[in-house]
């Protein structure tokens, strides 16, 4: 058994730095590379891509990345765990094999983890007793059932570990929890079992800290002015031992900082009740550990208390919820804020006179109050302000009518307005999120290695 395993996270969300994973595999020692490609709305986009093309529905960025790093992965024997399979992991695996052949690699083993995508099984699961009521609001599933665009179960780390144990160099999953991407390799390397709850809790905590990439190495950090070399920020690495004790660090010579402040902030990121951090594998009590700063960008955690996993998986559904659009104008010069308020009044009044009404509208003044409301008073002297107007409605034409009313005010309203680029704002589909729970016994995960 290895006494130390290094797991780096090179992608905190779909759209994160495309070079970070390259730097992680090239700039120092690494055993595993984890990558997260799925945002809440991503699954519905991928389902639609798959409807149009049975060979689509996965993260193509991942295939491009593997094309860049495969020779290094093979040379250094680094394994990759990613949720890039989206709703079509087998098609992603085929695309990866084509990339591998291009590099002269004919024996690349790819693990495919499936069973999270339950879109086609919803009726069957309802018959078997799944209620899919909204776990936040308690609202009944019937409210959205005919508008569901994607439905996925957040599965845990054990199927990922199984794929690794069966020899996979690259593991492709769909929806798994983000910390599971890091926990899977630990279970595989150290033989942890479902009842090793304190070890699973340590691994889950480590995965939670690194799941958002550089947010634990100096990104989104309160004392930003103290962070060295943001441009070359290093992405995080977990160094973990068989007993679960781990260090959060980054490659030597990279930018950013790993210290108590940044790690503490990231532990609290998207946190609910800290005593009950629920994953499919374990329930973690985030009040039961201490951080030790060892200097040199190393923070250590040696114990944390875990509890047995719950009998449920979390389900993430997305559903169609109408349309929205936003338009922005930059307003400058004397009395800029007053002018912006006047412009907003003009646009809304014109829309009112056309007879259009909207389910919801919003007026925001970027530079003054869009993020923090009236916490601070409006400054006396404002050079310029961005007016942001938004609408939401079930009817696409109504939303598009709004988009036609932004530009005209530049020439038929107050002076000093600019910044209207990119054409009329167009109606965008709103794909809303519906969280639910499902008994674990209704879900079967499948692991294949090709």
């Amino acid at each position: 058994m290895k006494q130390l395993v290094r797991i780096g996270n090179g992608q905190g969300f779909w759209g994160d730095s495309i070079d970070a994973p390259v730097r992680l595999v090239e700039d120092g020692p690494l055993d595993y590379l984890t990558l997260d490609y799925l945002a809440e709305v991503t699954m519905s986009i991928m389902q639609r891509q798959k409807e149009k093309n049975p060979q689509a529905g996965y993260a193509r960025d991942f295939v491009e990345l593997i094309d860049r790093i495969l020779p290094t992965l093979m040379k250094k024997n680094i394994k990759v765990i990613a949720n890039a399979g989206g709703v079509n992991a087998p098609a992603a695996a085929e695309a990866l094999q084509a990339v591998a052949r291009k590099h002269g690699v004919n024996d690349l083993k790819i693990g495919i983890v499936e069973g999270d995508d339950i879109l086609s099984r919803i009726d069957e699961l309802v018959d078997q007793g799944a209620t899919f009521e909204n776990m936040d609001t308690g609202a009944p599933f019937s409210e959205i059932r005919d508008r569901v665009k994607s439905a996925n179960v957040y599965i845990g780390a054990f199927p990922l570990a199984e794929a690794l144990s069966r020899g996979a160099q690259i593991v492709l999953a769909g929806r798994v929890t983000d910390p599971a991407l890091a926990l899977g390799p630990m279970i595989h390397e150290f033989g942890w079992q479902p009842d090793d709850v304190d070890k699973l809790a340590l691994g889950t905590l480590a995965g939670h800290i690194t799941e958002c990439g550089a947010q634990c190495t100096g990104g989104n950090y309160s004392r930003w002015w103290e962070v060295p070399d943001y441009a070359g920020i290093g992405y995080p690495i977990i160094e973990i031992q068989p007993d679960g004790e781990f260090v959060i660090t980054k490659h030597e010579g990279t930018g950013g900082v790993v210290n108590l402040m940044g790690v503490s902030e990231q532990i609290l990121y998207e946190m609910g009740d800290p005593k009950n951090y629920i994953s499919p594998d374990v329930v973690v009590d985030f009040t039961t550990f201490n951080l030790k700063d060892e200097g040199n960008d190393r923070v250590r955690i040696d114990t944390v208390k875990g509890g047995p996993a719950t009998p449920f998986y979390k389900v993430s559904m997305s559903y169609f919820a109408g349309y929205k659009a936003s338009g922005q104008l930059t307003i400058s010069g004397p009395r800029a804020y007053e002018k912006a308020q006047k412009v907003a009044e003009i646009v809304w009044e014109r829309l009112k006179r056309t007879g259009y009404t909207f389910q919801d509208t919003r007026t925001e003044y970027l530079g003054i109050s869009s993020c923090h409301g009236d916490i601070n008073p409006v400054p006396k002297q404002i050079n310029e302000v961005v007016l942001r107007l938004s609408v939401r409605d079930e009817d696409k034409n109504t939303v598009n009518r709004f988009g036609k009313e932004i530009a005209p005010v530049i020439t038929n309203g107050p002076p000093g307005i600019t910044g209207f680029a990119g054409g009329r704002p167009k109606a965008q589909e709103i794909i809303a999120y519906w969280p639910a729970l499902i008994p674990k016994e209704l879900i079967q995960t499948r692991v294949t290695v090709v």
Partner: protein
Amino acid sequence: MKTIKLYQIAHARSGDKGSNSNAGVVFYTRAGYDLGCELLTPERVKTHLQSIVKGEVTRYELPNLRALNFILGDSLGGGGSESLQNDAQGKTHGQAMLLMTLDVPDDFPADDVGI
């Protein structure tokens, strides 16, 4: 008594949880944490963030991190893709928290950081 800003004794990070956001506030010192537990009541936070938070404020304590975690109920205009807000994910709510004004004893150490 003297008046300070929360950012003189704490740092913070925020993000989204469905239609709520959460803001984690970490205090630089144990004395700061103890004072924070006393002063940063859910009611006080709700008042400070009243133009952002439409729902309830819930507070959790993490003494091991010298931290308080606040769930800011209904603060995202629906959240995710449904929201019309510029900050639909509550990314800036931690910074908003740090602007809170506190009355503390004259001899209470408060780092004059340059935020």
